């Protein structure tokens, strides 16, 4: 009987897939914490989200549902579907961090109405603000997804 090719790693190679599963699961933990955190800021603390925050939410929220689809049963290809979202959100979060830091000049700021995206609504320890949290979350998720991809291919 012929061995099915893609799954042939089989029993002895189950360790890398374990590691990959944990990495995708960790990524889901980050996405879910970040989603609930964002909802806490807007729905409980009633801080109005700026436009850039909405774009980052668009790329963050789906991961909460997409990643578990690849966890049960484990399908390493979930990285293919999750990584574009995580990357797009990551780029927007970089943009906003630069905006808040003042490294991107006034002229190309996209939000002139509503809540300015350069406005810092929360500051912990003097430097932790919401855009930075978003940047850290997206960075972590990208790293985890890439690591999961590398592990699952081994």
């Amino acid at each position, binding site marked *: 009987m012929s061995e*099915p090719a893609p799954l042939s790693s089989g029993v002895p190679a189950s360790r890398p897939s374990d590691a990959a*599963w944990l990495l995708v699961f960790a990524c889901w933990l980050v996405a879910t914490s970040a989603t609930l955190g964002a909802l806490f800021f807007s729905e409980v603390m009633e801080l109005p989200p700026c436009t850039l925050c909405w774009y980052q939410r668009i790329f963050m929220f789906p991961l909460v549902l997409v990643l*578990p689809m690849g966890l*049960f049963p484990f399908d390493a290809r979930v990285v293919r579907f999750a990584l574009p979202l995580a990357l797009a959100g990551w780029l927007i979060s970089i943009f906003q961090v630069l905006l808040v830091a003042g490294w991107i000049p006034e002229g190309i700021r996209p939000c002139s109405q509503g809540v300015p995206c350069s406005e810092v609504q929360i500051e912990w320890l003097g430097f932790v603000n919401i855009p930075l949290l978003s940047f850290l979350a997206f960075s972590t998720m990208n790293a985890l997804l890439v690591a999961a991809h590398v592990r699952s291919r081994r």
Partner: protein
Amino acid sequence: MSRKSKRNHATPDAPAQQAAAPSGGISRRTLFVVAALALLLAFVSGGLFYRSEKAQAAQRLAAQNKALLASAHSPSYGNADAKVHIVEFLDPACETCAVFYGHVKQLMADNPGRIRLSVRHVPLHEGSEHVVRMLESARAQDRYWEALAALFAAQDRWTVNHRVHPERAWPALEGLGLDLERVRREMNAADIAARMEKDASDARALNVTKTPEYFVNGRPMPQFGLAELQGLVREELEIAYR
């Protein structure tokens, strides 16, 4: 054949996938469900904690600043001897204020002579302070409440996307028996500006950042909502008219 081979293959792989996490005894499914529930629980309990802290802080603030609520300069409606006094912070351009206004009127109609309403102005919308001046000026001609009701009723004609177009608000004041020329003449008077400044500074002191905000005998709503307002009024009515 393909189906069978998949099945055959799934058997050795399944325990590693589903049954045991590499670190120990719990299955992946359990790990996932526990994590999901823990995050959800943290969110809900955090939310409840934050809300109750905030409500308590608002109550303390209102208790400390009770003197600021009973402002003598504010337009007042209803029986002066009523034992339940609602102080409402409103913005004439605020849609929720317009909706709630009818409910407050209904509460007063349901309990004749027992509720008094005072209005403080918080023009949060762009251009709204112009409309507040119109109202204050109509007050000098004893037409404040008529003007307020008419402006609320016509609100969608003079606010667009939360922006006030003052020139479109004027038609709403026609037919109320107001001398509109006099309203225009007097609306920029110094005493009106002083009253508006007093309202603004009291709103800041009471941390009124959204409208409408109600204080019923000095007590703020535990959280925003029509049921909360009605409940608060009912409680105060029961205490006052037991």
